[in-house]
């Protein structure tokens, strides 16, 4: 039996990753007066016109859709910051820049619903897409260099969407290496039901990826 994990059980769909991202906080500027909201997931408000306040992303998008607020794009979503990040990403082969864990989902939601609240939105959008491409390309090249049995892999600064896309492949690849690269003893002829290989661990290596 190959070491296959059931993809149905352990995979997050893209929508679920977005669901998790929707709990991130953003700043909004409401244009109406509303009493405090006592949700199961927390208390927010009260809301006063023109007074900025922090709410979860899903709430911000809901209010924006009904025209009740404007959303302030987060600090990292400016042309200057993103250009910096893009340069840095292009310069290094192995290092991933520090970006919010859910930057893909947050930016997607804001582009879809709050386009007019983002200054230079087309520039920002193309920068983020470039960053995504460069990062993903980096992930792919680094994965190509996986060629021996590793017990653990450390990756810094990968984002949620990237993790989700890469997870099934990396899981199975590492598992296959683990199985096939391990020094087995020849299985005993008599004991049919003994399936566990005796593992002598001389060739272990821990990859540190920055």
């Amino acid at each position, binding site marked *: 039996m190959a070491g296959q994990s059931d993809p149905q059980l352990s995979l997050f769909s893209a929508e679920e990753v977005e669901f998790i991202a929707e709990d991130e906080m953003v700043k909004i500027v409401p244009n109406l007066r509303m009493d405090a*909201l006592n949700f*199961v997931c927390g208390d927010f408000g009260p809301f006063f016109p023109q007074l900025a306040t922090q709410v979860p992303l899903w709430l911000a998008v809901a209010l924006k859709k009904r025209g009740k607020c404007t959303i302030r794009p987060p600090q990292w979503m400016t042309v200057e910051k993103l250009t910096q990040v893009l340069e840095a990403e292009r310069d290094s082969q192995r290092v991933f820049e520090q970006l919010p864990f859910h930057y893909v989902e947050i930016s997607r939601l804001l582009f879809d619903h709050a386009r007019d609240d983002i200054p230079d939105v087309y520039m920002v959008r193309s920068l983020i897409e470039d960053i995504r491409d460069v990062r993903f390309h980096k992930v792919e090249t680094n994965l190509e260099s996986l060629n021996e049995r590793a017990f653990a892999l450390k*990756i810094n600064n990968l984002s949620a969407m990237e993790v989700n896309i890469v*997870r099934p492949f*990396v899981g199975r690849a590492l*598992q296959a290496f683990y199985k096939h690269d391990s020094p087995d003893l020849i299985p005993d002829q008599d004991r049919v039901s003994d399936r566990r290989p005796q593992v002598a661990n001389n060739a*272990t290596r*821990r990859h540190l990826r920055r």
Partner: protein
Amino acid sequence: MASEAGEGSTAGMDDYETLISTTDVELLKKAWRNEKAAPEILRFETSLIQRIRGQIQLMEENIEEFAGSGIDPLTVSLYQMDLDRTQYLFRSYLRIRLQKIEKYMFHISKNPEVQSRLSEQEKGFAIRCADDMERHLEESVLSKLPDNYQDIVKQSIISEESDMIPEPQLDSFVVCKSRRFLGPFQLDGSDELLEMKPDELCIIHYKSIRERVQEGDIDLV
């Protein structure tokens, strides 16, 4: 209406600050993520689920009142959205566990340690599931096989152990993150020591971090 996690949580005392400011929904989200990412079934969060169930019911009643009493529809719809999100997490958590039970039902029925991780209703479900499956297989296939091969869990009478039971793959790789500095600990099956800094992503054997996930030190992503 945000209830705070009380004594039901298992985080260490030095996380007290995080503990008292974590809402139940956050805890549910964490439990949901861990359950989704883990290859085996984890311990059932009885008190958390009870609290959430109570809050959901309360919220449903509130919304009905609101809808009737003329509070503006915007507010009502926002409350409804929040309720929907919480209900989604709640149901998905229960469904993932049920899926895992269905998948590993024979393993569970032979393994009291795993059974201790299920809730009462889940235990009943697992037993009924295993019984039904056993009966179905016997009636449709096994009774028609030659005598030596009629057992559900053994390949043949001469097998020494029950080798046809699907078991969770504990050595599959999972992606995880630690919330604080974890001193060097031994990786399963090797002499290497690994340490984890907070918020560093690590892809690692589930076996190596199993206890730590149960204690809440490591989160699966």
